[in-house]
């Protein structure tokens, strides 16, 4: 196990009391458990409060555009399958601006782990409704209440047979760290939706609100049972299950493409003799 200090200690730009601090701790714990040296890890992120997370970790980082954490994460994961790749961003970034990439990543199933800090609000832009904000919840920008139904990332992921679908809570650091580690070990695309209190803009979904409702999935839940998983994925109200919701064995993308193209691309050089041969085909 690599000592936690290896992953650094940084001053953050997050509010005191924000759930992000706990998630950062859990991420470090998971990395340490996974015994991953910082230079073998890549965190890709988008833009938002959550998306700053990779700056507070000693690791390789690609902090890209709002909504676009997944495409560069997948690009890098394919360019070098020896990197352990995470994408990390907020609910707005991941399910709002980035919704199409989420759907495609579920279909594509490249081996990587997606950590979504789900505070059910747009934090960095000061409190607009996000895709996961409860319908009817009032914000400064939605004074009559958010008009749309919230997005259910777990149900969508399960409906698309994503190989690893989990929910966790920032208030349960060890449990969260364990889930992140499981996710990272699972072949294919692993989703961890992390309930994260935003103390500044979401006065509904507080630590207390989540604590009252979250319960850990126990041995009675069989994550390989798709129907059970779908039921658990739909549970979000008085009781919210946390833990591994669904686990399948879809073959990851890497196993479905021409093996000849899967090698660290940084070290490959063009074989000009071969190219000359191909050009002959045009003569």
């Amino acid at each position: 196990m690599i000592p936690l200090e290896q992953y650094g200690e940084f001053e953050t730009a997050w509010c005191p009391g924000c759930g992000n601090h706990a998630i950062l701790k859990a991420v470090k714990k998971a990395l340490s458990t996974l015994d991953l040296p910082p230079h073998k890890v890549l965190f890709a992120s988008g833009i938002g409060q959550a998306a700053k997370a990779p700056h507070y970790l000693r690791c390789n980082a690609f902090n890209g555009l709002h909504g676009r954490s997944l495409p560069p994460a997948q690009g890098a994961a394919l360019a070098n399958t020896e990197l352990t790749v995470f994408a990390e961003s907020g609910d707005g970034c991941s399910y709002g601006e980035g919704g199409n990439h989420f759907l495609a990543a579920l279909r594509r199933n490249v081996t990587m782990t997606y950590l979504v800090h789900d505070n059910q609000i747009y934090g960095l832009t000061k409190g607009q409704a996000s895709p996961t904000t409860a319908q009817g919840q009032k914000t400064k920008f939605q004074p009559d209440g958010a008009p749309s139904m919230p997005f259910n990332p777990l149900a969508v992921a399960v409906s698309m047979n994503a190989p690893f679908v989990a929910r966790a809570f920032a208030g349960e650091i060890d449990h969260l760290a364990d889930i992140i580690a499981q996710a990272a070990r699972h072949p294919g695309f692993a989703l961890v939706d992390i309930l994260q209190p935003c103390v500044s803009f979401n006065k509904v979904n507080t630590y207390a609100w989540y604590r009252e409702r979250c319960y850990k999935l126990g041995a009675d839940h069989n994550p390989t049972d798709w129907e059970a998983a779908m039921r658990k994925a739909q549970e979000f109200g008085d009781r919210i299950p946390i833990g591994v919701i669904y686990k399948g064995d879809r073959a990851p993308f890497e196993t479905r493409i021409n093996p000849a193209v899967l090698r660290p691309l940084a070290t490959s050089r063009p074989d000009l003799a071969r190219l000359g041969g191909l050009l002959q085909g045009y003569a």
Partner: protein
Amino acid sequence: MSDTCVSIVIGGEAGQGLVTVGDFLAKALVRAGYEIVVTQDYMSRIRGGHNTYAIRVSHEAIHGPRESIDLLVALNAETVALHRAQLTSRALVLADEAIDRLGHPGLSIPFKALCPKPMFENVAALGVLTQLLCLERSWLEALIRDEFAKKGDEVVRQNLDVFSSAQDWAAGQKAVFSCMAPPVRTAKRLFMNGNEAIAFGALAAGANFCSYYPMTPATSVAATFVSQGTKMGMLIEQAEDEIAAINMALGASYAGARVVVPTSGGGFALMVEGVSLAGMTETPVVVVLAQRPGPATGLPTRTEQGDLNMVLYAGHGDFPRAVFTPGTPEQCFELTYRAMDQAEKWQSPVFVLTDQFLADSYRAVVPFDLEALPPVSGPGLTCEDPAGYKRYALTPSGVSPRLVPGFGEHLVVVDSDEHTEDGHITEDLTVRVQMVDKRMRKFDGLAADVVPPTYSGDEAPSTLLVCWGSAMGAALEAAQGLRAGGKSAAVLHFGQVYPLIPKQFLPILERAGRVVMVEGNQSCQLARLIRQECGYHFKEAVTRYDGLPITARYILDRL
């Protein structure tokens, strides 16, 4: 305009196989040693409509497309009606006997009699064409063997039979066409269009990752990667949309891949934020943009040069870039190769801007000298002091040593926000200024590397035609036409339109008599750019924006 060439046009509905006839004939002509310029004109539909495949062929060098038709292969009656105005005095119309040639000389081909099945009609047409052009029959026979080999010997034999009986039938007809002069050159050439040459230019430079979203007329770049690049170890992924395509490429590039993203104007419009990200994170990426007429969906399968402005200014904020605009398949290869190097050398987005005409235009291409290719810049894998590595170290050139993550203990941190030398988000406004200045210093490097425009023709000509990209061939032939008419003329062609280095061309513009900008857009985008960069004001322009390629005739009619 030389009279030594023949213009062959095959016309019909989409799905009738006119591209097959065209490709076979054009390739055979190239193998036989002729020069060709192919122009493909097709509609945005899969079956029906009216498409043409035009081959201009000569034993001498030719450069551009032409409107006139010497041999019209009409696969349907509509083709005769639509193209009769273009027929030259010596023209023949070749059509099935059921088709009315509207009184034009030519041949009424008994396809039914010549072909056991309708699918052989293409080969029969080739037989007739071979005969009329006095082309050695072995060229097409060999091609038929090559192309049908995978379908089995029986298919090959049947095709060869139809081919030769059609040729024999034509030999027995009265209508004759003057034989083409035998070709001069004997060295092998490649039968290749602009998009294929771009793909090979990229592959030669080591491109090994392509993420794309299909869009006409760029798809055949990706298609060539799929059929050829995969054999070179290229990883190709069709992304969910263009935003994903460019962001995926940036992630791969960050991780050490050599990346190309082919698209067209509408797709590129969606990549604009990603271009800005490439500028900010200094991640190399080559975007190939094959233009078609806009705005919006416009004319999806036609040609135009209307996206230069968008490419020049895509992305919010200031950052450097380079824009290459090849004029021929050879230049497509060379300049794409160079673009791959420049992107890596200056850690910037670099563009290859082409268009539907060039993308689809087959030529006889002199084989690339792969051994003579200059080395391509690349990132490092490791460094001496991993702990001290800084992705954005401030340097005099603006270029920071770029390392790839994972091959050593160094950490590579890149950030879309303004950042410190080690890549972390910052709001230190002094650092901000340093970073803007650093990024903009790379502009000087890009400027020093600029490929100068090519000049050809008379010194201090009475008419100078200025052009970029695919307009080159038409401009060269228009200048020939002027000279044939006794006027001095020259062409200045920009194979790279950005950065612009005035001293490379301003003296040329100033010593010419009449200076005419020739471009395929309504608003004279390059003329404006040149005025912006060096104050030179073009007083005359020939513009075209009806979706068809510029031709020598088009230019000459407007001078």
